[in-house]
């Protein structure tokens, strides 16, 4: 049911789809760690078309493909490609799909992955399109919550930081809306979660609280998901420093947190999580970054081969 399927937006996936992907990702963990040889995609090629630079996403897709015995072709910026000569995305896709078994695309325009899927007969995975969708990030976030907390249902998830411009928290909110969770939103004034997304959460029956204080929010939180507050969102650097300071996660804040709460961050982080937190048992952001590999292995094998481990 996944063979040949495009993965463009988290909204295209049902709860069953997501659970199939997360179950399969768990099966990939030993191979992702290098503890098992799992050459399911031996001889297959991933066309990796990155029109915009990215460190983690590119590395983890490349690693995922190689851990499954496959290879990767493509580019990670457009400086040496025909795109610079004015080639349309549609033409680039028609060329690249002929060379590979699936396409992974990151692009600066919203909707680029959906367009790529229209022109490609091979499955397309969206690795981030402008301010739009980044479904594999959401899947690895959900996987991390499930692996660390045992399940996704029943958790109180706090989304903190820049909730207005952060695409990862928008997609995650849509993903969480499929589960039985409680969500709290903590953001500086002017960087609140868009009303449309809060509306979606409420429509799905999710309890949503909007709060001002991180201390108050972590008191009964199971998951604290932190995003970066970018200095360029603030016209006044002094204002930015004040706001950034009050959203910083440090050991003092963790004194107020419920036992067993986990801290997640899509990375890169700047000042929003103090380095002293890195060795605290709550800190799961590097585990989360690793989880990008098994989740992307699962997706690649599902869309290229259909994901049958015995086949």
């Amino acid at each position, binding site marked *: 049911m996944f063979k040949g399927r495009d993965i463009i*937006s988290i*909204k295209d996936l049902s709860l069953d789809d997501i659970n199939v992907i997360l179950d399969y990702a768990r099966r990939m963990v030993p191979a992702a760690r290098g503890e098992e040889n799992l050459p399911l995609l031996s001889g297959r090629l991933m066309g990796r078309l990155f029109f915009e630079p990215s460190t983690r996403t590119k590395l983890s897709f490349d690693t995922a493909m190689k851990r499954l015995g496959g290879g990767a072709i493509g580019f990670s910026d457009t400086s040496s490609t025909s795109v610079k000569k*004015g080639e*349309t*995305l*549609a033409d680039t896709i028609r060329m690249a799909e002929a060379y590979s078994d699936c396409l992974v695309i990151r*692009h*600066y*325009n*919203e*909707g*680029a992955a*959906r*367009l790529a899927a*229209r022109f490609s007969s091979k499955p397309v995975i969206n690795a981030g*399109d*402008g*301010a*739009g*969708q980044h479904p594999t990030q959401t899947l690895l976030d959900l996987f991390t919550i499930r692996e660390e907390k045992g399940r996704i249902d029943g958790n109180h998830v706090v989304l903190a930081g820049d909730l207005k411009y952060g695409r990862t928290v928008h997609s995650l909110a849509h993903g969480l809306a499929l589960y039985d969770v409680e969500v709290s939103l903590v953001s500086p004034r002017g960087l609140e979660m868009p009303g*449309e997304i809060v509306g979606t959460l409420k429509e799905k029956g999710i309890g949503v609280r909007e709060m001002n204080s991180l201390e108050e929010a972590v008191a009964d939180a199971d998951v604290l998901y932190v995003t970066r507050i970018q200095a360029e969102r603030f016209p006044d650097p002094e204002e930015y420093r004040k706001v950034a300071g009050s959203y910083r996660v440090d050991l003092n804040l963790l004194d107020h947190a419920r036992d067993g709460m986990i801290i997640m961050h899509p990375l890169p982080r700047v000042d929003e999580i103090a380095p002293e937190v890195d060795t605290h048992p709550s800190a799961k952001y590097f585990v989360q970054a690793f989880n990008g590999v098994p989740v992307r292995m699962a997706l690649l094998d599902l869309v290229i081969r259909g994901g049958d481990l015995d086949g």
Partner: protein
Amino acid sequence: MVKELRVTPIRNGTVIDHIPPGMGLKILSILMHDDPAGRTMTLAMNVSSARQGKKDVLKVEDLELTPEQVGKIALLAPEGTINIIRDSNVVKKEKVVLPDRVVGIVRCGNPNCITNQREPVEPEFVVVSRSPPRLRCLYCERELEDIIGNIL
């Protein structure tokens, strides 16, 4: 009861009725743009209406609308009706209906959307609601805020 006729009936053509007041001019300009033949068109504005209070009515002689034109009218006048007139008789009367997908008649309002770049695709929207019309871009997934200003 003798009904006062503000404009004379047409023999053959289309009458678009129940247009929200003020939208008639916009529909007129779209149809004129599509019609190099220069057909006779009559627009009545702010006509009293039992249903709407005020409405616009547009009559176009010797023209039956294309599905694309009906789609545009559905965006501007979601409660509109279209009457087809042949030999001075109304042979068909139907409400305009916005299809589930709107393709190639409005552009996406997001300048960073891939459909606003030089790509060989028509803008395409999913209809979220019909009246009032709400459209979400199939590509960038944003809802179009200004539908009328983005009609192609």
